[in-house]
């Protein structure tokens, strides 16, 4: 990952599929935005999306801890 040629291709591939403010404006009024991270700003998404008011991305990241705990408790106990 990270090679320039690959990045160029990715930018072309993601044309029209970037989740940004414009796309999110079409979301249901109560809809939320999630992203598993890491984010590559300008490629599949934008700062506006990840750090905007529809975003639950960082709650989502925190929930990695609580679900990991639930899995480990369930499997290892």
């Amino acid at each position, binding site marked *: *990952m990270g090679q320039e040629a690959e990045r160029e291709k*990715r930018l072309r*591939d*993601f*044309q*029209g*599929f*970037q*989740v940004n403010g414009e*796309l*999110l404006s*079409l*979301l*249901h009024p*109560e*809809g*939320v*935005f*999630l*992203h*598993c*991270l*890491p*984010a*590559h700003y300008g*490629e*599949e*998404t934008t700062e506006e999306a990840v750090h905007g008011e529809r975003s*639950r991305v960082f*709650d*989502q*990241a925190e*929930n*990695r*801890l*609580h*679900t*990991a*705990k*639930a*899995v*480990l*408790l*369930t*499997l*290892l*106990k």
Partner: protein
Amino acid sequence: MYPIPFRPRLLHKFATLRYPISLMAGDALTRPKDLLDFSGYGPKELRALLDLAEALKRERYRGEDLKGRVLALLFEKPSLRTRTTLEVAMLHLGGHAVYLDQKQVGIGEREPVRDVAKNLERFVEGIAARVFRHETVEALARHARVPVVNALSDRAHPLQALADLLTLKEAFGGLEGLEVAWVGDGNNVLNSLLEVAPLVGLRVRVATPQATSPTLASSSAQTPTSPTTPRRPPWAPTPSTPTSGPAWARRRKGRSASGTSRASR
């Protein structure tokens, strides 16, 4: 505890916030040994996992349930969230994690997967592995008698899917009937979301630039069928609708969310 085969299911049905976290962890006799993907997991297991995660979060849980237990973390690829949350989770439960860097272990190169498994099961109570090939974590699970958790493979990322579900459940008060749009790279994260969706009543629509995913399973997904043409999202307007650039029709009413991700990590 209880003599086998008596199981505290009735108690669990009426479990409230006050019910001990340790007893919410489920029945040792029926749960799957591993979490490689969601095969072997049904709606009941998903509900139990999510309820437990919610309770753990609400109570900012710290306990000694896994005191003295050790989880081996075997990572072929970099990680921030997965490694950190698995280590912290073990600490919060009274246990410990040992991180094994692939450069040191050389699984499949320095030493065959089977041998690694048959060694680790003697040292630790569980293994979490982030691997390039899903076959590697499957082999670990097959040869190690301890639980194996897939911390991401080319085919699946079940831990991420669980966190996604918990977040949606929190945002909307439940999962049944929710509609999620996946926009972007079709990948391991999408695979797991598609796999788990029917188990919790989630509906997933997919829009990917091209056939980037190894396998797209699950009948709950709507995917464009042509692998060669750029895929328009399912809600994109027909050619007769005037557009400038990719214009997106209003999604039909109902709670919805959108998720995206980039190429496999």
